[in-house]
C-alpha cells in the first residue's frame, strides 16, 4: 500500500490535548472531531488539510491522555500517515488499533519540511520526499499490522 500527500509539520511532544482538546470529547463522531483537530496549536490545519496529506512531527508524538479520539480525529481529517521520531506508547497502540498508519523514522522526521510532497510505501517502509528527492528507510509493519490498517482497525480486522 502506498500513500502520497502534502506535509503538515510539527515539533516535539505534540500531546493529545492539542490534537483534540477535551472540550470536544463529548462526542466520538469522527467527522465532528476532525473539525477541531490540532486547533490549539495550528488554527489553519483544518482549513489546509486535504485527503491523503501526511503529518510529520518529532519526538514523543501523541503524549498525554489515552483518548482514542486523537488518532480518530487525525484519520478523519484526511491524514493518510503520521511520521515521527517517536510516538507516546498509548497513542502508538491506539493509532494502529483504529487503522491510522504511523511510522517511526528520526531522520525523515527531522529533515522533511512543511508543505513538502511526500510518499510512503508501507510494504517496504520507504519514505520519499518528492520535493527534495531524498528517501528514508523506516521499519515496515509486519503483515498482520498492515492487515489491521487496511481493514480500518483491530476489531474490523477480526470481524470482516
Amino acid at each position, binding site marked *: 500500500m502506498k500513500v502520497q500527500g502534502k506535509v503538515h509539520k510539527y515539533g516535539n*511532544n505534540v*500531546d493529545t*490535548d*492539542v490534537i483534540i*482538546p*477535551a*472540550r470536544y*470529547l*463529548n*462526542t*466520538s463522531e469522527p467527522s465532528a472531531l476532525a473539525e477541531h483537530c490540532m486547533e*490549539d*496549536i495550528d488554527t489553519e490545519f483544518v482549513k489546509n488539510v486535504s485527503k491523503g496529506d501526511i503529518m510529520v512531527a518529532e*519526538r*514523543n508524538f501523541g*503524549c*498525554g*491522555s*489515552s*483518548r*482514542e*479520539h486523537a*488518532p*480518530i480525529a487525525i484519520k478523519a481529517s484526511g491524514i493518510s500517515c503520521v511520521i515521527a521520531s*517517536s510516538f*507516546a*506508547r*498509548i497513542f502508538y*497502540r*491506539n493509532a494502529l*488499533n*483504529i487503522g491510522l498508519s504511523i511510522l517511526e523514522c528520526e531522520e525523515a522526521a527531522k529533515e522533511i519540511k512543511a508543505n513538502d510532497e511526500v510518499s510512503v510505501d508501507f510494504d517496504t517502509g520507504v519514505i520519499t520526499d518528492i520535493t527534495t528527492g531524498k528517501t528514508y528507510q523506516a521499519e515496515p509493519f509486519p503483515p498482520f499490522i498492515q492487515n489491521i490498517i487496511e481493514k480500518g*482497525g*483491530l*476489531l*474490523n480486522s*477480526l*470481524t470482516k
Partner: protein
Amino acid sequence: MGMTMTQKILADHAGLKEVKAGQLINAKLDIVHGNDVTSPVAINEFNRCKAENVFDKSRITLIMDHFTPNKDIKSAENCKQVREFAKKFNIDNYYDVGQMGIEHALLPEQGLVVPGDTVIGADSHTCTYGALGAFSTGVGSTDMAAGMISGMAWFKVPSALKIVLKGKLQENVSGKDVILHLIGKIGVDGALYRSLEFTGEGVHALSMDDRLCIANMAIECGAKNGIFPVDDVTLEYVNGRAKREYKVYEADADAEYDEVIEIDLSALRPTVAFPHLPENTKTIDEIKPNEVKIDQVVIGSCTNGRMEDMEAAAKILKGKKVNKDVRTIIIPATQQIYLQCIEKGIIKIFIEAGAVVSTPTCGPCLGGHMGILAKGERAVATTNRNFVGRMGHPESEVYLSSPAVAAASAVAGYIADPAKI
C-alpha cells in the same frame, strides 16, 4: 537473568515461566476499566463486532467521572449509553453520580484493584495502581473493547528504569514533589515504553497516598507503568478493602535495568512544573514571590484528591482567607473522602477560607467543566498535565504543584512557599 517486578507479574499472567524485555505476550486481565469519555467509544466497537457478552461481569469497572454530573446533553447521552450497557450485561462495578469518585482514587479505595493484578484502563492515568504493586497501564477504547470481550490483552514486555529512593521527605514536601522532580530530571519521554520501578529504603517512609500520586504520573514521563514494592504500608491499606485475593510479587535480585536513578527524598523541595510541559520544573526556591500571579487554584484530581491532600491543604488554609483575586476550587476525589472531610471539619475550613468545594469530578483537570480558564489566565493546579489549552483557553497557563503549594498560592495570590504563609 532475573526479571523486574513488572516482568514477573506479566509472565505469570501470560502463563509463562519467564519473559524478556521486548517479547510480545498475551496476558490475562484482572480488571478492564473505562470512564464516561472512553467507554462509549469502546461500547461502539464492542457492538460493531457483535460481541454477545463480556468476559466477566465482575472484572469490568465503569466509572462516570469526567463530565459528571453531566455538563451538557452530549455528555449525558454518553453516560446514558454506558449506563444501559452496564445494565444489559449486569456489570457489578458501575459507578454513577452519588457513588462515583474519580476513577483512580475510587478503584484502590474500594479494593477493586489489588497487589499482583494486571489491569488495563481506557484512561492514561490507569498506571496509578502500580502503587499497590499491580501492573496497570492506560490503553485506548479499542483495547478496552477487546479486553471486555476476551479478558486478554497483548503487551510488549517493557524494560525498566530503577528509581532508588533514599531518606525521608521534609515538611511540606510530598509525593507530588517526588514525581515532578523525577519528570524534570528525565523529561516527558524519559521512560518512553518502559517501566518505572521504585525501590529503596525511602519507599517505606512514603504513605499510600504519596505512592498513588507518584505512580499516577508515571505516564507523564512516557512510562508504560510505575510500580512500588508491596510492604507493610501497602498491606495495611489493602487488608480490609481487597475484594479479591492478592498476590505479592518481588523483583529478582539480579533483575536487569536500563538505568538506575537515585533520589534523596530528604533533599527534595516543593516543586512546580511551569507551562506547557510537566518536565519544566523549578523548586519553590527558584520562584520569586510575586513572580507568578494567579487567577485560579484547583486542588483535587486523580493525582491529588485524596485524604492526605485535603489535610495538607486544610493545614495551610485553616484560619486564613484565599486571595480575593484567586478562585479556589477544591475537589475531594471520592464520596468517602468528601465525607471524611466533613467529619473532620475540613470542609468548614475550606469554605471559611473562601474556597468552593465540589462533588467528585475530573472536570477542570482536562478543561471539561467546573473551572475553565479564560484567555491569559493562570492556574496553580494539583493535577497532572499543563499542556497548551489543558484547562481552557489555548492562551491560558497551568502550573502543576502539590496541595501544600497550591493552598499557599491561593492565599498569597501568586506561587508561594507553604513554609512562608
